[in-house]
């Protein structure tokens, strides 16, 4: 990698070499905690320290201190500072403190030094650890999603945390922290590699596109998109020359902007990089709706119950109630608060490499879900949301669910709150293959009942088990997606792409058997969505069981969406063509130049790997 053109020192991190993280990483990862702990200790010891200083420097005021003197000497556990001072160990204590600080600093430096990563064509590898070395390698084709998070402090340093989730418990690969722009570029590179599109090909296409994108916006009809495979090389070569020119220019203009301006720009920049994603989010989330939906949400009920318990407890003099329920109340409030803040500046948009969801005001984050990674989708409507027509959408994805920590749980929420029209748009993004077919079922699924929209009908005798919702319970199947509608108080519509359904089960309990009913369960990877069709007619359930089991096998065998870049339909290439310049733009010219050489070394890239029936090479993605 030559340093020909590195705007803001950008290098290509996905070049297969070992790289280090941002130098501020240890501080951001552990240092802030260390400082916070130190601050906490000092704050707690403040009074005692002041007393001690009084005792030492103003002995005349130490009369009350003397009484406690003997006690201090014994009471090390509760009052280490008192013990240290009274035993004349101040010097040793300071020395120990200095030693600790030096050790921590050296530790930080070493951990930064030893923490390296590389992105090859097969895997992302991370080596870390000082005494206990670890080497983690995640296969690119197993990537389930990429999250770029920018906590507030990290944003102040202009850094971001890149997290690559793969299927498996705590198997995520974290790169914390990277330079903000580098993280975005790396994500684009990893996604491109993971898409199955050969890097050389992608680079070959990226070069002309990138050159056009930055030199002349009108030249969007890039020569790289012509139908003939062999034609790629020539414009690539030209573009390499052109890039040399732009490369000379860019650093100058970049240096012109001061660091502060850059930080402010980064801070104000939209979470979804307009170069990478279509600038308009398909869903707009007004702040009023976010706050209203949270206040009307299910957690409000818990808040009311908690407040009632606390009030009753306090008025009746049961003080233990305070200790047991106040922490819960604090937790609830912080949950609601984080829900609101995380929903601010929410955006969702489709990119060639999957759905991009961004959110957050001060601490921002965005997540990319590549195509073919969504195992189940559910739109739910809590009863209080019904007058407003609000829905929320959650998904099951592999590798992030079982231990539903707040952050991971947050990630499964695709749409915090939106209208039915928003649900339509989000579903179209999440299930692109079946968007048109599912579209016709959504309205009937969200609010319909009975056989509206082609859902299976639940017999009236099911009312014994589901008195309110039996009319809504139904299943429809279209274009390889099973759609289950149920729930009256909490309306729910779950969609399961059969290509990723793990198994299907039919169960019959004693009461169900008496009523000739059965329950059908569609098993997917663990997550907030459970696709269950309760109290279906037994014959219908059996027929559905057989059909879904068969259909799942068929769909799984023909599904290629996990290698979305490798299988290039001609029309797909045409569709994504407008996105091509945008896609390539963040990969700075520096990466394009070697890419072009590589493409010349291995020509005509499209022809070697593409299926025989493919008429056009896949240049984008």
């Amino acid at each position, binding site marked *: 990698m030559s340093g020909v053109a590195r705007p803001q020192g950008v290098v290509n991190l996905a070049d297969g070499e070992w790289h280090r993280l941002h130098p501020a990483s240890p501080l951001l990862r552990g240092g802030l905690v260390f400082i916070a702990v130190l601050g906490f200790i000092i704050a707690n010891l403040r009074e005692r320290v002041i007393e001690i200083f009084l005792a030492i420097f103003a002995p005349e005021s130490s009369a009350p201190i003397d009484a406690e003197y003997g006690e201090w000497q014994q009471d090390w556990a509760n009052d280490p500072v008192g013990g240290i001072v009274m035993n004349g160990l101040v010097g040793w204590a300071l020395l120990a403190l200095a030693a600790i600080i030096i050790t921590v600093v050296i530790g930080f430096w070493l951990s930064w030094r030893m923490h390296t990563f590389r992105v090859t064509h097969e895997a992302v590898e991370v080596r870390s650890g000082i005494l206990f070395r670890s080497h983690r390698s995640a*296969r690119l*084709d*197993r990537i*389930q999603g990429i999250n770029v998070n920018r906590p507030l402090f990290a944003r102040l340093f202009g850094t971001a945390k890149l997290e690559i989730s793969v*299927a498996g418990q705590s198997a995520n690969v974290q790169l914390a922290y990277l330079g903000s722009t580098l993280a975005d570029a790396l994500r684009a590179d990893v996604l491109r590699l993971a898409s199955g599109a050969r890097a050389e090909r992608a680079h070959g296409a990226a070069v002309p596109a990138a050159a056009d994108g930055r030199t002349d916006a009108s030249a969007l009809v890039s020569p790289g998109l012509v139908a003939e495979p062999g034609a790629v090389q020539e414009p690539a070569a030209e573009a390499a020359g052109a890039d040399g020119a732009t490369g000379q220019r860019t650093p100058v203009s970049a240096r012109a902007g001061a660091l502060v301006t850059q930080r402010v720009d980064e801070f104000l920049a939209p979470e979804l990089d307009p170069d990478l994603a279509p600038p308009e989010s398909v869903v707009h989330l007004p702040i009023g709706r976010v706050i209203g939906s949270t206040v009307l949400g299910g957690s409000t009920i818990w808040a009311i119950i908690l407040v009632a318990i606390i009030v009753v407890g306090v008025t009746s003099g049961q003080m233990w109630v305070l200790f047991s329920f106040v922490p819960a109340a604090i937790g609830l409030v912080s949950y609601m608060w984080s829900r609101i803040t995380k929903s601010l500046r929410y955006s969702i948009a489709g990119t060639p490499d999957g759905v991009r969801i961004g959110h957050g005001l001060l601490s921002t984050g965005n997540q990319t879900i590549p195509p*073919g990674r969504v195992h189940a989708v559910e739109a739910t409507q809590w009863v209080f949301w019904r007058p407003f027509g609000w829905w929320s959408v959650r998904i099951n994805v*592999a590798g992030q669910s*079982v231990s539903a920590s707040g952050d991971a749980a947050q990630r499964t929420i695709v749409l915090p709150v939106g209208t039915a029209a928003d649900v339509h748009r989000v579903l179209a993004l999440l299930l692109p293959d079946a968007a048109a077919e599912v579209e016709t079922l959504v309205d009937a699924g969200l609010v319909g009942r009975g056989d509206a929209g082609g859902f299976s009908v639940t017999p009236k005798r099911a009312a014994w088990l589901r008195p309110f919702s039996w009319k809504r319970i139904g299943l429809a199947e279209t274009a390889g997606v099973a759609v289950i509608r149920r729930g009256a108080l909490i309306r729910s519509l779950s969609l399961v792409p059969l*290509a*990723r359904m*793990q*198994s*299907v*089960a*039919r*169960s*019959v*309990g*004693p009461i169900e*058997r008496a009523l000739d009913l059965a329950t059908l*369960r569609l*098993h*997917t*990877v*663990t997550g907030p969505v*459970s696709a269950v069709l309760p109290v279906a007619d037994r014959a219908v359930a059996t027929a559905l*069981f057989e059909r879904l*089991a068969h259909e*799942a*096998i068929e769909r*799984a*065998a023909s*599904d*290629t969406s*996990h*290698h979305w870049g*490798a*299988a290039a339909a001609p029309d797909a290439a045409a569709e994504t063509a407008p996105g091509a310049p945008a896609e390539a733009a963040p990969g700075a010219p520096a990466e394009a130049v070697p890419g072009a050489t590589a493409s010349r070394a291995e020509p005509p890239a499209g022809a070697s790997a593409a299926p025989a029936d493919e008429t056009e090479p896949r240049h984008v993605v």
Partner: protein
Amino acid sequence: MPEAPAPELQPEDGVHDEAGLPEASDTGWLRVSPKYVLVEVVGSIVGMLIFVGIALGAHFLLHWEWALWVAGAIAVVSLVGIAFEPRRVRSIQYRLRADDLLFRRGIMFQRQVAVPYGRMQLVDITRGPVARALGLADLKFVTAAASSAVTVPGLPMAEADRLRDELVALAESRRAGL
């Protein structure tokens, strides 16, 4: 004791070589070994003895009058359960179809699961002390979904080994994405 290592994860290329598939013709519904009844019965009796023992201990040591009734109730329920054990074990059936494994069990609570071979993440063979004495083993078929959990208990050891190898081979040839 996991005996079957998960097949090495490989990038699936989307091309399934239909010619080279190990063929799984429909086996029809197969039952587990009748000897498995003994495993269940021993398990039930041990459980029963423990709980009845606790209840009797409470009765004689702590002089809780009602504990005697609890002990009696536990004993009756367990004995009724044991009486139904042969019927329950007969209800445990599995079936290898062309592309998926079917499993069903239960009399009161019936459950039937269909798991495509391609979804297999690993196969586990476990043997408890009683099962080992009888030469039986449990075969567990694990997918990425925790709720799939298909465990075929009470297979003769040789049959369990054979089935494991067959399932691994089938899964390998029909490998799908996650």
